């Protein structure tokens, strides 16, 4: 009985760093929940400016989804030890990620051009706030991608468990901000 008890708590192979990242993601989700809940409450309270989202937001959505897919392929490349696929696609994912942020900026310009001011109506304030807060989280991901690229290009290519784990951390966070954006876009489209 005693040995069974010892067996049952043997490490189940969850990497603590990865777990810590998930807890961090949970707290990021809570922050956006705070904003989207406030958005719903204000929206229901009236005095809410109605406007369509700028077209650039749709283009940026495609970009970040592509970037997520490309980074995943790069990860597969790393696991299959195809050096070129791994490095090339990593750089491509990074470029797409930067483009996403640039496109978000252009989206804000479009929004401003449509007459949606940052401060005139709460509806506009919320849209800028939520999209900008998301962009900041993407910038965090871009910083992680830069570190990943530095590793990719300065270290000798080798497949190790430790490097795979590190890559997975970046990958999971990147997928996370991608999915977060899709959620926020759908949320803003549906809460009008």
């Amino acid at each position, binding site marked *: 009985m005693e040995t069974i008890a*010892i067996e049952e708590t043997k490490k189940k192979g969850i990497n*603590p760093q990865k777990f810590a990242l998930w*807890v961090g993601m949970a*707290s990021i989700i809570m922050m956006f929940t705070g*904003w989207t809940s*406030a958005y719903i409450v204000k929206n229901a*309270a009236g*005095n809410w400016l109605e406007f369509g989202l700028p077209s650039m937001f749709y283009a940026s959505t495609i970009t970040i989804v592509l970037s997520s897919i490309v980074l995943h392929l790069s990860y597969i490349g790393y696991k299959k030890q195809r050096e070129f696929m791994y490095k090339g696609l990593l750089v491509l994912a990074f470029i797409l990620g930067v483009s996403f942020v640039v496109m978000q900026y252009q989206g804000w310009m479009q929004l401003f051009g449509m007459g949606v001011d940052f401060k005139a109506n709460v509806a506009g*304030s919320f849209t800028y706030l939520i999209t900008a807060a998301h962009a900041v989280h993407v910038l965090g991901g871009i910083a992680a991608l830069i570190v990943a690229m530095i590793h990719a290009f300065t270290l000798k290519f080798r497949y190790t468990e430790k490097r795979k784990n590190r890559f997975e951390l970046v990958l999971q966070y990147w997928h996370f901000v991608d999915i977060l954006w899709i959620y926020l876009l759908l949320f803003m489209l549906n809460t009008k």
Partner: protein
Amino acid sequence: MANIATTYDDDVLLEEHGYNDHFHDHHHGDKYQSGFISHYIFSMDHKVIARQFLITGIIWAIIGAAMSVVFRLQLGFPEESLAWLKPVLGKWIVVDPTGVGTLAPEFYYALVTMHGTILVFFVLTAGLSGTFSNLLIPLQLGARDMASPFLNMLSYWFFFLAGIVMFYSLFLSTGPFSGGWTAYPPLSALPQASTGSGTGMTLWLVSLTLFVVSVLLGGINYVTTVLNLRTKGMSLWRMPLTIWAFFVTAIIGVLSFPVLASGFFMLMMDRGLGTSFFLSEIFIEGQALDRVGGSPVLYQHLFWFLGHPEVYIIILPAMGLVSEVLAVHARKPIFGYRAMVYSILAIAFLSFIVWAHHMFMSGVNPFISNFFVVFTLIIAVPSAVKVFNWITTLYGGNIRLNTPMLFAIGFVSLFISGGLTGVFLGNSTIDIQMHDTYFVVAHFHIVMGVAAFFGMFAGIYHWYPKMYSRFMNETLGKIHFWGTLIGAYAIFWPMHFIGMAGVPRRYYSFDTFDAFKHFSGMNQFITVAAILVFFVQLVFVINFFYSIWKGKKMTTKNPWDATTLEWTTPIEPIHGNWPGNLPTVHRWAYDYNKDEREFVSQIVPLEEGEVGDH
């Protein structure tokens, strides 16, 4: 001691049954503790970080308590001259030509605001769970350190930085923020709203944002460590209740503090960028502002979505510490271990769906209030289960009435007295009369202020040997206990009556209100008690620092005859906690007086035919 069972030597057990994780194989030469700076300042060792949190918390507690003495002087003795405080408070004491000094009203508000902010966040959040989560999670789980020692170090330094910013704001010429620790808009959202709303509020926001970062880094670490770094045999159901409490506290913190941050960011935008999330139809000095469309109640929702879980972030670690101390010093297994765990989980869950009971009178829909009343009252159930189990643990125990035990019992007393008044306030109808009176002040000070302090003191006296390898002085400890217990009740008991008579909180002076004037005698009594309690705390501070260097030395590894793993580590703490193998756990944490054995450490294997766990 052991008639039927074999006696075990801890070291032999660790040697034979321990688990070699090859920690000491590769000699990174103790890179964590090599020099003075890496050992004492930017340390990544959880035990050092715990002591950093504790000492910083003590310093903040002294500052926060001193502030309360000053505003209590104003409330108790409004006619007396405060000119003698001028050397400390400077221009905030206004001295008239006859030499009578009075406290500037705006500074009175600043003091109350800072007292709340400092005690709630810096002392009872960082000082309490920062200290004991750091100290006990790795030690009681049999881990070498936290999952990420680096993030752990950052967690302390973000807290330190938050403290520096807040401390700096005390010295601004316009004073620190003065709109209450809850920082409701519009006072917090418009820099021109009051003197403290300008730079003072900006620094308050910066400080608390840094603080949120600190809590998140710490919380992520605690959760990860508990779930991933338990030693062999340490199943979740064998964890001491301390660890359960810290674990659940960390989860609550990680889920609720980000929501506060989201409110803070919106507040920053309202302050600096001209948005109107929380502002609508405001007049300042007769001028209408062009800020419309927002709602201050929205901020209150976001704030209290953190704010209510926050009180459990404060009280759950205290409950965990008390459960452990009671069991050890009553020499009995904790009564209803599983019920205790389920109560912690129930309290944590309910804490997220009761926040609007802070807002019954701020214009929320009464039908929504009903929902919050029901869940608020349901919290009484798991709380009562815990109280029942503590008392039952004491019943028939072989009680050692030493200082940690006294504080643990004192905690139970305070938690009952303060908890009962919560049942009053949780009713939205009774709250119509009670809200914003001294009844509320009395309630929350007893149940989450003083009670949490008692849990913290119980923990400090009990684990002091683990922190400094010495004991604190028992006589001074007992003076500290009786002075604080009697004094705290003397301060807060009368406040219930003042509150029931309708005396509002937050008033600078009652001179001009006929209805409240006749409580001046009671207010004087409260103030005298508060001053006495303040000086009794200095006894603790002296005892604490004196004992670091001069306290009675620890001579055995396990002075309390406790079962948990931290007492199997060497007397002088080392990096990595155990010199050789990690302990392997064979039983739950509460085998006291079992089968005629006085206590059985968690590392002792089960006897032939012995039934393990609970």
